[in-house]
């Protein structure tokens, strides 16, 4: 399958020019600031850049950035509870320092590796992406991260590697949702991508958002962001990356196979059995303006269509 080169990818379909220009300056400044590109300062990123970015572009409401407070207080992270406010309330109980990621399976160089070592030499960039939840709401979030491929390449996937399986931290002592008797989830949370999907330049690992380190409720210290798929594919707080030949079984697919598939590409013409996927509510919403907008195929990221050429996407939902 043809993998598109970086040159084919527009800076971002929704980032206005003055913003992505400033983003480039941000990258330069951050990198200068952060040396190896990992030691992202916890609080202060370049103030000038932040001030500039805080000026919201004159885009239609539905394509403006979602506020940081919405994106950090309205989360699905069932490890901390099933209410949208639970992650923000309880994620502080998770310790993320030190953090190691185990890379295993079909790779030439498997092993457990500290996050800092894993990210050494990798440049950070800001990506402003739409995030479309399978529950029919969506946000626009400025992530800070880097392509998944850059990490995978370090471990040299073998010729047998066809899929990538990711796992979230499983630590019931710090994740109260994992202790809940009423959860039907078989922990740890598992997600997966086809290797060519993971290698697509739009698929990133994020370590920050809104110019800061990733908050715990958003999946600190490292999470996946796959903007053309429903949000549940973008697994949080990753501790394991496994290259496999067989397709991994992802958590929601395992739980309710009729409702959640492996691919989970955003697709307005394939309804969830319990609700329509034709529209979405874009944050910010207000009581009298639910801000419904039409959902777009691949969440508007048409450049990934080539990954699915010839596939019946109503069958492989």
């Amino acid at each position, binding site marked *: 399958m043809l993998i598109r080169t970086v040159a084919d990818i527009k800076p971002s379909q929704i980032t206005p020019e003055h913003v992505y220009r400033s983003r480039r300056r941000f990258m330069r400044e951050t990198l200068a600031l952060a040396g190896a590109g990992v030691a992202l300062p916890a609080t202060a990123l370049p103030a000038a850049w932040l001030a500039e970015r805080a000026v919201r572009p004159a885009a239609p409401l539905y394509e403006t950035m979602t506020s940081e407070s919405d994106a950090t207080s309205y989360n699905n992270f069932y490890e901390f509870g*099933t209410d949208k406010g639970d992650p923000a309330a309880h994620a502080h109980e998770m310790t993320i320092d030190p953090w190691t990621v185990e890379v295993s399976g079909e790779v030439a160089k498997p092993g457990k590796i500290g996050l800092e070592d894993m990210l050494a030499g990798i440049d950070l960039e800001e990506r402003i992406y739409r995030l479309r939840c399978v529950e029919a*709401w969506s946000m626009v979030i400025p992530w800070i991260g880097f392509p998944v491929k850059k990490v995978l390449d370090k471990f040299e996937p073998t010729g047998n590697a066809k899929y990538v399986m990711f796992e979230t931290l499983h630590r019931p002592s710090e994740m109260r949702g994992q202790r*809940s008797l009423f959860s039907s989830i078989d922990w740890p949370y598992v997600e997966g991508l086809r290797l060519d999907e993971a290698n697509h330049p739009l698929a990133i690992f994020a370590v920050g958002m809104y110019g800061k380190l990733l908050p715990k409720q958003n999946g600190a210290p490292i999470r996946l962001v796959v903007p053309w798929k429903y949000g549940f594919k973008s697994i949080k707080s990753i501790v394991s990356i496994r290259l496999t030949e067989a397709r991994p079984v992802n958590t929601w697919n395992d*739980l309710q196979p009729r409702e959640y598939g492996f691919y989970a590409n955003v697709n307005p013409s394939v309804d969830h059995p*319990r609700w*329509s996927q034709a529209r979405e509510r874009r944050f910010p919403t207000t*009581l*009298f303006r639910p801000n419904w907008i039409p959902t777009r195929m691949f969440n508007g990221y048409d450049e990934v269509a080539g990954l699915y050429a010839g596939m019946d996407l109503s069958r492989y939902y």
Partner: protein
Amino acid sequence: MPGSGLGPDPADELVRTLGTWGLRILLLTLAVSPASRVLRQPRLVRFRRMVGLWAFTYIVLHFIAYLAVLAGFELATIAADVVKRPYITVGFSALLMLIPLAVTSTRGWQRRLGRRWRMLHRLVYPAAVAAWTHLMWLSKGGFMDPFVYGAILILLFGERVAARFRRARRSPSR
């Protein structure tokens, strides 16, 4: 919406809150008769109509909120929802079952219907089961709420069965 206390997704939160309280008050309505028996306070039953009408009010507001702020009064969307989405179908059917009960809750209707009034008002049982099913079917992954409300519902039904059983045993000996 800042200051509303409804959080980042006020429309969904409003619909959810009204629905949750509708179900809670409906369970409270079903608890009145058992409570009057267990506590031997027959006068409690006087409050049953009022509590039931509050439950109905919350459930109607829940439905109106869904129509207004979530569905935006788009009739095509609403019709498709009611037909295609089982959890909405079952929730809507609970509402439909409660309408005749609210209408006939007055003393006048009680008198006019006589024995049939009691029969009619047994509709509250399937309505409660439908309301619970509505919650169960829209839950995703976490099942604490459906479990707790389901347990309460079983308890309230169980007490009724037990009470009926006691009456049946007592009456032949009289």
